């Protein structure tokens, strides 16, 4: 069973969401709603919801990064102070808590941010090669629906798209 891709471009966002809604309800053979990718110049939380749960894991990275930054930062700072007895400071203990807290706080944020961004790259699969069906108009003002389906289901999907006033439908073979 060979699968192929198809990109449908819409100017009207409502039509695009209607198309997806209908596609979801259609239960076509050889097609899964998970294989639909939406491409858009702006974000569309409501359409993403239609496409079903597409989990985002960035927040776990954030959690890990922040905890790591905080704990690791404090350990790093206090243990380097403990090994560096060359510089006791008059009036202060070797490991003073308030200054270390300031640095811990900064490192907590630093690693929080860094690892969040790392999580973003992993989650968004960036950097990546653009899909060959990518169309520059998606970055301008049109919404694109990229569908991966069995060749058998393709004509039906194409038909559905046309019905919803798709501006253009690009298949894999057409280029």
């Amino acid at each position, binding site marked *: 069973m060979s699968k192929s891709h198809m990109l449908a471009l819409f100017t009207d966002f409502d039509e695009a969401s209607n198309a997806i809604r209908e596609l979801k309800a259609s239960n076509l053979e050889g097609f899964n709603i998970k294989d639909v990718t939406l491409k858009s110049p702006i974000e569309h939380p409501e359409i993403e919801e239609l496409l079903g749960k597409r989990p985002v894991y960035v927040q776990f990275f954030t959690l890990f990064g922040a905890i790591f930054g905080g704990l690791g930062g404090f*350990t790093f700072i*206090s243990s380097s102070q403990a090994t560096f007895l060359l*510089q*006791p400071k008059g*009036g202060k*203990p070797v*490991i003073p808590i308030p200054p270390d807290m300031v640095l811990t706080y900064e490192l907590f944020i630093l690693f929080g941010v860094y690892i969040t961004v790392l999580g973003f790259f992993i989650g968004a699969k960036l950097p990546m090669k653009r899909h060959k069906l990518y169309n520059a108009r998606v970055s301008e003002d049109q919404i694109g629906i990229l569908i991966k389906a069995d060749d058998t289901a393709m004509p039906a999907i194409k038909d559905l798209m046309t019905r919803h006033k798709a501006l253009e439908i690009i298949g894999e073979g057409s280029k």
Partner: protein
Amino acid sequence: MSITNLLNNWSFYRNKRPYRGQYDLNKEYSEYKWAMALDLDICTGCNACTTACYAENNLPVVGKKRFHHGQVMHWIRIERYWDEKMVDFPEQGASFLPMMCQQCEAAPCETVCPVGATSHTNDGLNSQNYHRCIGSRYCSANCPYKVRYFNFWNYPSTAWPAPLPDQLNPDVTVRTKGIMEKCTFCVQRLNEAKSRARTEYRLVRDGEVVPACVQACPTSAITFGNIVDPNSKVAKMWKNQQVDLYKDLQEKDNTVRGYRILEDLRPFPSVMYMERIRDTEA
């Protein structure tokens, strides 16, 4: 592993200087706490200490223009104050105050140095490590006594026209531009004396070593010594003057002359001054 180290020695790492018992003859690395007592009543303001310091510590002569800009490098300076209530004439003379680094136990300069170029030694000195210094000048900003001097210029290239460099003390680094420096209590002398004493299985004897200013002072207004040793002259003087190293507010009789300057800022200085006396009936 250092986490075990951290956990095992946590209480040690949380000790805050100065703590009582920090210096103790029976303990291993704190048999010395160098301190001074300076009698303002017999200080005549003659500047012998300043010149001695120039000779001992390779202080550059900066010249008129730079002196005017406040870039002078005298580690010990003699301040001269007039009486605030003076009417026409200073009838009770002037007040002279030799001011050098007070080697504070809780030194405000130490905590703020970003690179740790200034820190506390086991002998209770406030060390300044020229080679670590990057010249942020924060220490000077935070020093209440303003006894830290910054090398604004590259003095080694200008201050000692040949053959003056032959006079330089090889035990003391000549400081280049961009470095903070200050009185060290002539640590090169202290180290030499300590080394000699250790070779002979003993502690440094009282009076065996003194900084250049103390050695020069014609009136012997400055007393220097190891305050840990209860028999040293300086320890006796501190005790006699009821000044306690570990206190920021001394409870003492008003007949007693000892005090430490700007004690209310809690730097715990190691230099005790003794009040100037004036015969009010004269």
